[in-house]
C-alpha cells in the first residue's frame, strides 16, 4: 500500500502537460482525481516514473450549455457534474449517474475525464456516454481532435488517446429530462456495478449502454435495433446479452451477468416508455 517512488510535476497549463507527455512517453502518467491511478500505484500494479498532476487546471472544470450539446470539462469532478444545473437540465442522465459513482469522497475527487480515460468497463460513465452518442475532445502536440464515444473505448483498459494526448472535454448531445433509465446492480452502494444498463431516448431513437458486460463498455445495438423495429421492452431486452462476454468472478458468473443484463435493460427501457 506504499507506491514505488516517482517524480511529480504540477502542470500549469494543458500545453505543459502535453510537453511533459511528449518528453517522457510511457514513463509519465497524468494525475487527475487519482481515484483509479493511485490505488494501482499503491498496490504497485502501476509504477510510473513521473506523475503529471493536471488536477489544478481548474479551467478544465466546467459544464456549459452549447446549444445542441452540453460540454463538460474533463477535470469536472463527479460531484460538480451531478449538481450542475446545466447538466441536470440538458443531460440529466449524466448528472444522475455521476451522482451514483462510488461514495461522496470518491465523487468529490474523481473526474469525468479520469474515469473515461481509464477505460474501465465496470465504470458507469463510459456506457452512458456510449448510449448518449457523446464525443470526446483530445488535445495533443498538434492541436485538438474529436473522437466519438463509439471509437473511444478500444479494449480492456485501453482508449483511443495517444500517449501524448490529454482528454480535455466531453460533449453530450442534449437529451430531455425523464427520457432515460439507469439501472445498476451492486452489492454495496459504493461498489462498481456487477452489471449496469442505461437507456436514453433521443430524436434519433433509443440508445442502450451496458456496464461491465465485456472488456469494454458496450452499446447494445441488437436491443436498439429491436426497438427501432417496434419490439416491446421485454422482447428487445432479451437481446441484451447477445454477443456479450462478461468476466466471471465471485460476484457474478457469466450466466448470471447475462441474465441481469436482460433484466436491467428491460427495466431501463420501461422507464423510457418502450
Amino acid at each position: 500500500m506504499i507506491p514505488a517512488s516517482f517524480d511529480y510535476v504540477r502542470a500549469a497549463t494543458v500545453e505543459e502537460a502535453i510537453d511533459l507527455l511528449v518528453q517522457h512517453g510511457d514513463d509519465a502518467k497524468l494525475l487527475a482525481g487519482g481515484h483509479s491511478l493511485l490505488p494501482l500505484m499503491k498496490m504497485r500494479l502501476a509504477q510510473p516514473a513521473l506523475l503529471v498532476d493536471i488536477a489544478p487546471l481548474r479551467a478544465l472544470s466546467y459544464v456549459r450549455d452549447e446549444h445542441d450539446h452540453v460540454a463538460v470539462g474533463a477535470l469536472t469532478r463527479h460531484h460538480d457534474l451531478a449538481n450542475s444545473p446545466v447538466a441536470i437540465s440538458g443531460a440529466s442522465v449524466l448528472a444522475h449517474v455521476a451522482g451514483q459513482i462510488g461514495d461522496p469522497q470518491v465523487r468529490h475527487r474523481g473526474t469525468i475525464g479520469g474515469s473515461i480515460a481509464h477505460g474501465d468497463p465496470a465504470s458507469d460513465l463510459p456506457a452512458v456516454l456510449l448510449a448518449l452518442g457523446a464525443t470526446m475532445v483530445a488535445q495533443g502536440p498538434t492541436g485538438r481532435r474529436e473522437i466519438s464515444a463509439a471509437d473511444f473505448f478500444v479494449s480492456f483498459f485501453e482508449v483511443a488517446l495517444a500517449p501524448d494526448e490529454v482528454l480535455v472535454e466531453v460533449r453530450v448531445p442534449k437529451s430531455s429530462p425523464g427520457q432515460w433509465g439507469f439501472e445498476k446492480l451492486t452489492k454495496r452502494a459504493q461498489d462498481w456495478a456487477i452489471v449496469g444498463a442505461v437507456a436514453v431516448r433521443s430524436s434519433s431513437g433509443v440508445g442502450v449502454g451496458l456496464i461491465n458486460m465485456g472488456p469494454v463498455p458496450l452499446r447494445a445495438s441488437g436491443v436498439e435495433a429491436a426497438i427501432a423495429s417496434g419490439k416491446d421492452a421485454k422482447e428487445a431486452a432479451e437481446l441484451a446479452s447477445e454477443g456479450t462476454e462478461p468476466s466471471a468472478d465471485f460476484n457474478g458468473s457469466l450466466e448470471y451477468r447475462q441474465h441481469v443484463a436482460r433484466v436491467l435493460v428491460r427495466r431501463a427501457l420501461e422507464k423510457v416508455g418502450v
Partner: protein
Amino acid sequence: MSILGNRVLRREDPKFLTVGGTYVADLELPGSVHVTFVRSNMAHAKIVSVDSSRAKAMPGVIDVFSNDDLGLANFPTIMEMTNAAMTPPMLASGTVRFVGEPIVVIVAETREAAADAAELVVIDYEPLPVVIDPVEARKDEILLFPEAGTNVAFTLDFGGDDTLFDACEVVVELTLANQRVAPCPLEGRSAAAHMTADGRLEFSSATQAPHGVRDALVSFLGLEPEQVHVVTPDVGGGFGAKASVYQEDIVVGWCALRLGRPVRWTETRSESMVGLGHGRAQVQHARIGGTRDGIVQAYRLDVLQDSGAYPGFGAVLPFMTRTMTSGPYKIARAECASVSVVTNSTTTTAYRGAGRPEATAAIERMMDVFAREIEMDPAELRRRNLISKDEFPYTTPVETVYDVGDYHRALDLALEVADYEQLRTEQSRRRLSGDVRQLGIGLSCYVEITNGLPDGEFGAVEIRPDGKVIVRTGTSPHGQGHVTAWSMLVAEQLGIAIEDIEVIYGDTDVVPRGAGTMGSRSLQIGGAAVNQAALDVIEKAKDLAADLFEADRGDVVLDKASASFHVVGSPAVSHSWAELAAAALAKDGGPLFAEVDLASPGPTFPFGTHVSVVEVDTETGKVTVLRHIAVDDAGRIVNPLLAEGQVHGGIAQGVAQALLEEVVYDLDGNPLTSTLADYSFISAAELPSYETRFTETPTPVNALGAKGIGESGTIGSTPAVHNAVCDALAHLGVRHVDMPTTPMRVWSAIEEAAARTNAKGQG
C-alpha cells in the same frame, strides 16, 4: 436521584470530534526506524531459499532478519488440547502455510524504504498442494503438518446418543456454512517499541489486552515483568481480533532490543486483511426433531471449525458454540460435537461473539426449517419452546446454567414493535400478486454467554486531596465508552460529579493487573470491580470520618447529594471527600484509596429477539433490509446511549455477515478479498435505521445486575436477516440459501428451485 440508567453523553467524544485520537502510528518517536514484513505469496510451499542480500544493501535499510536470526521459540498452543505439533514460528521457517505469513522482517529508516526493500527480497518456493476447504482438510489427504499425521487440531466429543431422535415425529437436517469473515477494525495492527534510559522496553500497542501483550513480551523475549511497560494509546477497534498477541508484535519488540533504536510497525490494509485473524469459519451440520404440534425434543449440532493455518483462538471457538447449543429453548435432548482442522488460510480467531453467533445461527435457522416442515408460524414455534421465566436458573442438556431471563417478553415486544401480523399480511399480498419484490420476515431469539472466561478484573479508586477521583481499571476500552460508564458508577457511589472523575486504563505501569476488554466482559466484571472499589473507599472514608468526628463508626453516613460525611442526625457538621483524603494523608502518609481484584462470579446470559424485514428482488437476487427491530436484554443498563451504540455497531456487522461479507480464496489459496473494494465491508447506505428496545432483567450474578451488551448485536441480527431472506423465498420452493446471501447466490437458489418445480411438474 441516580445517574445510572441515564443517557450521559460520552466523555470520550469531544476529543475524537475535534482534534481526533492519538493512535500508535501517531506517536512521536524521535529517531524511530520502520519495520516491514515480507509475506508469503504462496498458500503452501517449501521455502527453498531466501535471498535478502539486495534488500540489505539498499540505502536506508538497517537490517534484515529471518527466523533463524531471531532465535525465538515457536508460539505455544493456545490450549493444551490443541495439537502440539502445529505451533507457528515467529517468522515462517521451512514451510509457508498461508498467503500473508511473515517470512522476513526488514528494518529501514523510513516506511517507504522498507517497502522498496521488501520488493528486493527473493524467495524461492517449491509449491505444495493446497487445501482451503475445511471439508477437504478433514480428509487428511493434504497435510499442513506431515509430522502431525493429521490436519485435526482440536476435537470436542462427548459421545452421542443413537436414540436422540427416536421419539420425534418430525426430524429435519441441514448443512450450514457460517462463513469466514474479516473483523476489519478501522485501525489495523500497530506497534511501537523502544528502550528507555533505564533499560526498560516500552511498547505501545493497538491491543485489547495490554497486560497480555506485556506477559507475552516477557515470556518470549526472556525479560522480567518489571522490564516491560506496555501502553495503549487510542485503539481504533478490535472486535476480538486484537485480543491476541501476534508474532509481529514479538518481532517488533525483538528488533527494538536488538537494534537499540525505537522501532515502529503499522500494517497496511492489504496486510491486515490477510494477517489479522479472521472470524467464524464453521461448517455446521444440524439436526432438529420434535412433534407435529411444535414441541422441539432433540437437537444435534456437528461443527467443523476452520482454524486457518495454525490453531489459535479460532480452533477452540467450538467450546463456546457448544456452550450455547440449544439456545433459548427448552429442548430435552441436545448434543454438540466439533472437529477443528488446519487449512492453508489466515489463522482464525475471536470475532465479535466468538463461537456464540455460530451457535445461534445454527439453532435459529433450524427452528425456521422445522417450523416450515410442520407448517407452523416461526414465531409461534419459538413461543412454544422458549424457556419460561420461572424456570431459572436453567440447566441445558450441555450443562450450561443460564442465570435469569424473560425470553417470552423479548419475543412479544419485538413482534409488537414490528407489527408482525401486518407484516405477514403484506407478505401474503405480495406473494399472491407475484410481486417481483418479495417480502421476507426473519426472527432470531437468542441467548448468549458473556464474561465466559474465568478471569477476574482489577479496579481501583483513589480520592485525591483536591477531592477529585482517579479510577484505574484493568479493562482496555477501544471505543466502548468505559470512561463514561465507570465515571457514572463511581459518581453514583461517591456522590462526586463525573467531571471530577478521571479513568485510567491501558498502561501496565499505572494499572498493575488486567485481563482487558473482550467477550462482553467489561461492565459486569471490570465495572463491578470499580464499583466495589468505590464501596470499599467509602468504608475507609467512614473510618477516617469517625476519627475526625470522634463518633461511632456505625453512625457516620455519606450524604451523596453534598458529597460529604456526617454523623447521623447532625448534617450541619460534615467532612468533604477532600478533607478525608487529607486526613488519610496525615494519618498514613498515603492516599485515600481502595483497590479490588474481583474474582469472576461466573458468566451471565444476555438474551433478546431480533426481527428483520427484507425485500428481495427476485429477478436479480438483491436483498434490501427494510427494517431491523432489536429487543435486547443485558440486565441493568448503566447508560442506554452506550448500550445502543454497542447494539447499533453489532447489528451492522451482523447484517454484513448475513448479506455481504465473506473472505474468499481461489483454489490455489490466493485471497480474493484482500482489499475493501473486494471485501464487502458494509456501509450505512446498506442499512436502515434500527428500531431498538431494551428490556431489563437484572442478573443476580453481580452487584450491578448487569450482563454484557457488546456482542448481542452480531449474535441476534445475523440469523434474523438470514431467516428473513430465506423466508422471502420460501413460497418459491427455496429451502435454504447459505450466507452471505449475495445477489447471485439468491438468484441461483430461485433458479434451482424453479428447475426442481418444473422437473416435478413434467415428471
